C-alpha cells in the first residue's frame, strides 16, 4: 500500500507572463520500504516536489496523501503534526542549528509538543547506531560534512516517521561520506519507511528501487 500518494500536482511560481509551472500534473506513489529516486536538472522542480509532499509548501492543484493524511486540505496545525509524526526531512546543507550540539539537534524534533514520547531514547540509539557518540556533544561547526549529514539523518528519524524526504543529501559531501548517507537512507527504507530521494547525481540512484525523472513538471520512469 502506498504511504505517499500524489495525484495531478500543479505548482506555479510567479504571476502573469513571468509565471513558471514547475509541477504540471506530477503523480507519485511510494510504498512502505521503497526508495524512489527522482532525477532532474537544476530548477526542474525536484525540491519543490519534496516540499509539497512534506507539507512545507502548498500546491496549486492536485492531491497528496501521506500515511493516510490529506496534505492538500490540512490546516497549518495539522501539517505541523504531520511533519512531526510522519515525515522526516534530510537537506543538502544539513540545516543543523549552530547553537545546538549534534545530539541536541537530533533531539530537537523530539522536544516538540506532540512528538513521540520515545523520541529521546530513540535519538540516543540513533546516535550510537550512526557512530556519532564520540562527537555528540560537538557543535555543528566542529563536525565534518559527513558527520553533520548523519546527525541530520538521525534528526529526521528521531520521531520514527513513515516517510523520509531527502533533498540532494549527498550534494555537499565527498564520495565516501555520500555513500554512507545513501546506505543509511536505504537502511531507513528497509525498516519500513517510504523514502523519496531527490538528486541530480545519477550515481546516487543505485540504491533506489525505482528511479523517476522530473521533466516539464511531470514524473516519468527512467
Amino acid at each position: 500500500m502506498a504511504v505517499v500518494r500524489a495525484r495531478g500536482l500543479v505548482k506555479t511560481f510567479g504571476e502573469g507572463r513571468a509565471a513558471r509551472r514547475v509541477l504540471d500534473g506530477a503523480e507519485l506513489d511510494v510504498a512502505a520500504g521503497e526508495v524512489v529516486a527522482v532525477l532532474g536538472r537544476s530548477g526542474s522542480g525536484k525540491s519543490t516536489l519534496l516540499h509539497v509532499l512534506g507539507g512545507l509548501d502548498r500546491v496549486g492543484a492536485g492531491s497528496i496523501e501521506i500515511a493516510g493524511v490529506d496534505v492538500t486540505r490540512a490546516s497549518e496545525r495539522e501539517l505541523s503534526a504531520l511533519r512531526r509524526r510522519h515525515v522526516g526531512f534530510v537537506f543538502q546543507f544539513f540545516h543543523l542549528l549552530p547553537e545546538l550540539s549534534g545530539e541536541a539537534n537530533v533531539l530537537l524534533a523530539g522536544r516538540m509538543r506532540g512528538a513521540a514520547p520515545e523520541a529521546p531514547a530513540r535519538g540516543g540509539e540513533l546516535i550510537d547506531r550512526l557512530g556519532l557518540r564520540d562527537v555528540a556533544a560537538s557543535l555543528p561547526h566542529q563536525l565534518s560534512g559527513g558527520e553533520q549529514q548523519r546527525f541530520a539523518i538521525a534528526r529526521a528519524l528521531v520521531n520514527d516517521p513513515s516517510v523520509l524526504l531527502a533533498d540532494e543529501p549527498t550534494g555537499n559531501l565527498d564520495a565516501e561520506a555520500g555513500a554512507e548517507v545513501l546506505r543509511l537512507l536505504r537502511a531507513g527504507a528497509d525498516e519500513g519507511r517510504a523514502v523519496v530521494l531527490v538528486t541530480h547525481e545519477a550515481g546516487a540512484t543505485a540504491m533506489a528501487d525505482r528511479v523517476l525523472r522530473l521533466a516539464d513538471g511531470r514524473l516519468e520512469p527512467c
Partner: protein
Amino acid sequence: MLSLAIAGLRARGSRTVLSALGILAASLVVGTGVTVGYGLATGFERSAERAGLPDVIARFTPERRATVDERVRALPNLAAASYRYEVLDEPLTANGHHNHRGAVNTVGAGRRGYEIVEGRDVAGDRAGEAVVERGLAKEWDLHPGDAIGLGRRIGELRIVGIASSPDNVAFPLATTARVYISEATIRERLGFTPDDANVALLWLCDPSKADVTLTQARAVSFGLGRLEFVTREGVRVLLSQAAGIVISLLVAFSLVALVAAGTMLAAGAHADVQRRLSAFGVQRALGFTPARIAALQAAEAALVAAPAALAGLAIGTLAVAGPSAGLLAALNEQPPGRDLLAPLALALIAVVAIVVAAATWPAWRAARRPPAEILRGGDVTPRTGREARGGLLGLGARFSTAARGRFVASVATIAVCAGVVVLMLALASLLERLREDPGTVGKRYQLTVSAPEWMLGAIRDVAGVDAAGQRYATEAADSFRLGEPLRLVAYPGDHTEFEAPPLAEGRRVRGPGEAEVGLGLADALGLRPGSTLAAQLRSGAEVRFRVTGIVRALEHDGRIAWVRPERLLGGDPGLQPGIVVRVEPGADRGQVSRALTEIGAPPRTASAATTRNGDFLAVLAAVLRGVGLAVGLVCLYALIQALTMTARERRGAVALLRACGGDARAVATVLAGAAAAVAAPAALAGIALEWAVFGPLVARLAAGFASLPLAPAPGHVAIVLGGLLVLTAGATAVVARRVLREPVVAGLREE
C-alpha cells in the same frame, strides 16, 4: 540617487514600514514634549505680556485712593499705576452654581493688568456689567451675555467679557474666583462713588530695578496696614518652579524616546548593513565610493524619517494641544499658537538628523573597508560558542544573544524605558501621597482642630490620641530682600514631636530666638546656620531669628521656617494657634475624629500639600501615569523591533523548526525565549537605573530643598515586571504571527 533610494526602500517594504513606525512613535513623544514643554516654559511671559501684567502688585488695608496715589507717585522708577478695590469672600451665583469665595475687584481708570480673552472689558460709564475670570467661566460654563449674581447688595450683573491674568492660577485651582466690575456699577447699586483702594498695580520703567522701588515703597508705606507685595518676577519664579519639574520630565522623556529610537534604528541599520554587505561589496567593485554608498543610505533614511517624523510630531502635538491648553488655562496662561512652529521645526530637523546619522554611520563604516574584504564577509553567520540549554526557550534566548551589539542596544533601550516607567510610577505615587499623606512632607500629625487652648487637655485625653499641641502658622516676607514670601511655623515646645523635616545642616531649634529654615528659603536668602532671618509679619512688625539649622522641607517649596512662638506673638499678638493631633499608631483615625467631634472639637484631616494644589497634583499624577504608559509603548516597540530582527536573521532556523514539526506554540516558545532574554535583564537594569540614577537625579531637579522618596517601591517593581511580561508576550505574539505567515520553504531557502 533619489530613485535608487526609493527603489531600495520599496524592496525592503516591511522593514521600511517598521522603521517608519518606530520613528513615528519616537516623534510622537518628542512632539508631545515640545508642545507641553514649550507651552509651559514660555506661557507666563507670553501671557504676562498680553495681559500687561504689572511689575508689582501691592495689597494693603483699604485706604483713600488719593492718599495711596500720592505715595505711589513719589516712587522712583514708576511708569504707571492703577488701583482696585478688592472684596474677598463675596458670594457668587450663576448658571446654577454657587461659591462663597468670590474676589470682586472694582476697577478704576488706567491699565487693567488682565487680558480680555472673550467679549469686552467693563466700561467705566456703564453699570450692571461684569468681567469674569476664565477659570470661573470655564468651570461654570459662562459666556458673555450670561448673568452672574454678586450677593444681595450688588445683585445680578451681565457678563460682558472673560478675562485672564497670570498673577495667580485660575479658579478652581485657586480657591477664589475673580470678578471685575466698574465703579459705575458700585455707584448704581450701592449709591456711592468708591474712592478707596486696597490693591495697587505698579508698572515700572525698569523692571530689573524692582527691588529699589520696593525698598522705597516700604519706606513710604507709613499708614498702610498689612502691606504685601507680589512681584511679576516672584510669580514667574513660583510658576517656573512648578512647571520646571514637568518640563524637565518632558525633556527627559523626549530624550529617552529619541535615544531609544536612535539606538534601535542604529541596531536595525547595522543588521541591515550586515545583510547587504555583499551588495556593498559589489557596488564598491563596480566603482561606487564609500561616500556614495553612505549617501544612498542617508537618502533612504531621510526619505523614511522625514514623513514619519512629521506625522509623529503632528500627531503628538495635536494629541496634547487640548490638554496642554487646559493646563495653561489652569495657570491663567495662553497657549503658544503659531510660535510653536519654530520649536517643532527644530524638533523635526533633530529627529531626522538623528535617524539619518544612526542609519548612515554603519554603512559608512562598512563601505570604507576594502571591497574584497566586504565580499568575503558578505554572509551573516550566527556566532557560536557554548551550546544553548533550556529547551526551546533557551534556544530562543541564544538566538537573541548571538548578535551581541544589538542585544546590548536592545537591553539598554528597554532598561532606560523601564527605569523611566518606574520613575513615573514613583513620582505619581509621591504626588498622591503629597496630596493625602501628611507624613510625606514631614508632618507627624494627622488631624487639626480649631479649638480654644483650654480644650487641649480634653483633646489629649481622647482615646487614640497620641499627642496634641498648639501650632502657629503665619505668612511673612523676608525684610532684608523685601517681598520674598515665607511661612513661619511655631510650636511652644519641641516641634519635632509634630513636624520633623530631615535636618540637612546645623541643629534643631532650642530657644525662642532660633529658627530652622527650609533649604528652599536658605537658598533664596543665602542663609546658613548662624545667619539672621528677618521676617516682616502681616501686622507690619519685624521679627528676627538666628538660624540654627537647615532642613529639607517640601512644604511651601521649602520657603518655611520653624521657630518658637514668643517672638511671633510679640510682633502679632492677634495670631491664633490651631491644635494639631497625632493619632496613636494603629488607632482608627475615623474613631478618633468622631470622639473629638463629640467633645466639641471637630477635626480636619491634615493634608500634605495645600488643598489648593490637591487637584493639580492629582492631574499631574494622572499625566505621569499616562506618560509611563507611553514609555511602555516605546518598550513594546523596542521589543518588537529586536525580536523581528532576530526572527529575520534566524528565519532559516525557525523554518527548520517548523519543518521538524514545530507548530505555532513551538515557534512562539522560541520567540518568547528570545524576547525574555532581552526583557529580563532590561527589567532588572531599569529598576537599578531608577534606584541609583533617575530617582536621585529627578529628586534633586524637582526639589533640591527636600528629600523626595523616589526609590522604586515593591508595587512599582511588580508593575514594571508584570508590564514587561505582558509586553514580552505581546511582542512575541505579534512577531510569531508574522513569522508563521511566511512559508516554511522561504526560510529554508535563505538558510
